[in-house]
């Protein structure tokens, strides 16, 4: 296990380096600069500002300096939000994104697994068709459609929930964003669970358990479900990526002060360091989740040997 972990970390470092390199040079190739937007700076002032951030150096030198900083956890100062470092901005805003992502993943796992099990146990009957129909809808309706539609119905027309805002994470403000983020995940998870359950329920050891006379509920919970959720574990990585993408839309629509909203704005304003910081955070997150998924997989299924 430890050797596996070590090797995966060794592979993760060049991957991360690739991400940083591509993002760095792409961002710099973009026309425009972080300092030209509002007031027209005189050439002297602009030169001074550029020098202050070390941006008068050759690009490769800047790149090396940036890497040196990142290696010791220094992501540099923000170019747009004066007097703030990238780390401070990340720290101030990660909680919203983390709360949204974590809660919607939890909700999606609980509802999706329940629906999947019900569908598998009632295979080819009304309950099955109903849940799988909902699942197809969930896959086909993107977040940027569900979000405004739900706001229109539950906030604007019915007035049950606030239309937008964070409000220190009050439950009423959380319900709509979390639902929007969870719906597509529920769809995928319920389909995966159903497929896994159907396969497992037809296997020999389940027949043995039935022959022993164990009650059906025990068979489902103890024997079948444990094996059936294996595909879900490897879905962890893609699910995280999906949530990140979704959060870009959800944070924009619900006007939430999370990282996703920052990313698009910073990219448009050429706030190089902030964009780089976000890209690194997201890349690390996805790498770590994929690693956790692989390790969980091995821990849950003794047939898988990490090598």
């Amino acid at each position: 296990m430890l050797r596996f972990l070590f090797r995966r970390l060794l592979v993760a470092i060049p991957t991360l380096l690739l991400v940083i390199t591509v993002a760095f040079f792409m961002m710099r190739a973009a026309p425009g600069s972080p300092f030209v937007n509002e007031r027209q700076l005189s050439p002297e002032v602009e030169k001074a500002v550029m020098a202050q951030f070390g941006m008068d150096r050759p690009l490769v030198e800047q790149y090396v300096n940036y890497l040196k900083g990142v290696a010791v956890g220094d992501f540099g100062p923000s170019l747009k939000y004066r007097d703030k470092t990238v780390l401070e901005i990340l720290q101030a805003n990660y909680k919203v994104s983390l709360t949204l992502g974590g809660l919607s993943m939890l909700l999606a796992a609980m509802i999706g697994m329940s629906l999947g099990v019900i569908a598998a146990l009632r295979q080819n009957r009304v309950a099955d068709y109903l849940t799988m129909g909902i699942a197809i809808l969930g896959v086909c309706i993107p977040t940027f459609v569900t979000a405004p539609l739900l706001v229109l119905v539950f906030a604007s027309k019915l007035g049950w929930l606030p239309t937008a805002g964070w409000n220190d994470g009050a439950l009423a403000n959380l319900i709509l964003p979390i639902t929007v983020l969870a719906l597509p995940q529920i769809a995928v998870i319920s389909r995966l669970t159903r497929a896994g359950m159907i396969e497992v329920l037809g296997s020999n050891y389940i027949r043995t358990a039935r022959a022993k006379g164990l009650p059906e509920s025990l068979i489902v919970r103890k024997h079948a479900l444990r094996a059936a959720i294996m595909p879900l574990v490897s879905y962890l990585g893609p699910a995280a990526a999906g949530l990140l993408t979704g959060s870009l839309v959800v944070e924009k629509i619900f006007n939430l002060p999370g990282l996703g909203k920052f990313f698009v704005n910073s990219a448009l304003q050429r706030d190089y360091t902030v964009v780089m910081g976000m890209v690194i955070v997201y890349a690390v997150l996805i790498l770590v989740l994929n690693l956790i998924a692989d390790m969980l997989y091995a821990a849950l299924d003794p047939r898988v040997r990490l090598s």
Partner: protein
Amino acid sequence: MIPGSPERAALLQNAVRGRSLWDDAARRLLRNKAAVTGMVVLAVMVVLAVVGPWLVPYHYDTVTKTDVWMGPLQSGHLLGTDSLGRDLAARLLAGLGVSLAIGVVATSVSLVIGVLWGAVAGYLGGRIDEIMMRIVDTLYSLPFIFFVILLMVTFGRNIFLIFLAIGAVEWLTMSRIVRGQTLSLKSKEFIEAARAAGLSSGQIIIRHIVPNLLGPVVIYVTLTIPAVIIAESFLSFLGLGVQPPMASLGTLIATGAQDMEMAPWLLVFPSLTMVVTLMAFNFIGDGLRDALDPKDR
């Protein structure tokens, strides 16, 4: 029996015609109600997107100051108008066309890259295969949507770039599927025969491997097109995709979401169109999978 004799001709005529794999698949597909419905819906969508602009008496970009915020069926606007008095039906048809076109073109880009990459890796095998697939694995673990966003910011919001960017993202899964198929094809006798006949690796890949990959590739293509449409709309929704006055389903939904308090129809109709289109593709994809791969049901 003499070849060419009338008896033989009669016998041949009565002989049972063999059924190919594709005949079988077509038969199964046509029996699948959801898939057939999907195909019909999609055909209607395509026809509407192509000839629709001539059916609607308005151009998608015509601003009519007197007809601002018209509801559906008011003063000759079937689906109403937006804040500038532009006819929603005309804009919806134009947007549907743009979204479908982006879906098809970007999928073609991903198809070409993915099939070639996967077939070469699978056919050559060994160290080259390992390196090529490691590259795919690495790209998989990148937060891709962020790179697409960066790309759009860097090189301006050009529609061809959208094709390229999305196509370049979607080829990864395709290359994995194709590689797996190629590995199993590689050991078949007809490939060995081709090699014995002196064909080069490139010729074998193009003439013998790629045509035999058709089944899984067709299935995956029908599932990639809706993914591309979603990706494009997502970018447009964030203001990074198709630029006004041009419309796509994504830009229409985005403006609809802004104006929904005032004019809910601006949100409802584009959303509905989007969902129906995506569902049609998904049903066709599922149907094709069942039809071409019956053991997998």
